[in-house]
């Protein structure tokens, strides 16, 4: 497949996920800088957008954004470790699994906190 042309185990998955999550975060950055610019030039319009962010679909989007951000951050750290301490690459499989362990231990509670207002109502 064109997008997944790199072949080989965890390396390929890490590369594909890093690219997909990075592109998703980039798209959000465009939106996010635009919205914060709105907050300075047209505060009421920003508050209207905030209602969308705080809505149920908005919260699902934020949980997905958080997942992309957390994966990209952890995998980026893995890349830096292997780049600057190549000797550690013999533990690459362990580091890859640690990535996912931290991803779920940190990510699941955060996702729950973000999504909770959908069924409990947003704090005022």
């Amino acid at each position, binding site marked *: 497949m064109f997008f997944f042309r*790199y072949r080989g185990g*965890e*390396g*390929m*998955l*890490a*590369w594909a996920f*890093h*690219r997909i999550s*990075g*592109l998703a*975060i*980039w798209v959000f*950055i*465009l939106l996010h*800088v*635009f919205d*914060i*610019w*709105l*907050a*300075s*030039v047209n*505060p*009421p319009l*920003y*508050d209207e957008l*905030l209602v969308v*962010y*705080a809505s149920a679909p*908005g*919260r699902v989007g*934020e949980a997905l954004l*958080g997942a992309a*951000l*957390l994966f990209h*951050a952890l*995998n*980026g*750290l893995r*890349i*830096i470790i*292997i*780049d600057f301490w190549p000797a550690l*690459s013999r533990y*690459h499989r362990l580091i890859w699994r640690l990535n996912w362990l931290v991803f779920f231990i940190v990510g699941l509670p*955060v996702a729950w*906190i*973000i999504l909770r*207002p959908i069924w409990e109502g*947003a*704090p*005022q």
Partner: protein
Amino acid sequence: MSVVGGRRARPQGGGFELAVWYLMRLTGLALFVLALSHFIITHVLYDPAEQTAEWIISERWANVAIRTVDWLMLAAVTFHAFMGVRIVVGDYTRGGVRTLLTAALYIAAFVIFAMGTFALVSVPNVLPGG
């Protein structure tokens, strides 16, 4: 483009690409702290529903230190995100299309950085008594 173990190999020969390679890692490390803490603050410690424009301007940005950190995050993320997409563009396009898209990315990066900087400095109370 060589990708080893899911990552980009260090460019040989120095120059611009090597500088970008190092800066991607440097800004990435900065964003590991800045972007993750930003996400935790805005989504876990606070809820999006509470952070109205008025609240951002009068509470969050009343603190010049927070504004400064936000601006550093803006600078790091503008570089990291647009240079990252530039690599993607470089992987899937060539020739005139690549040149055109890369130029568009640089222009968009400048616009995004300018918009974010404008928001950070234009709202009131940037300086004590301002």
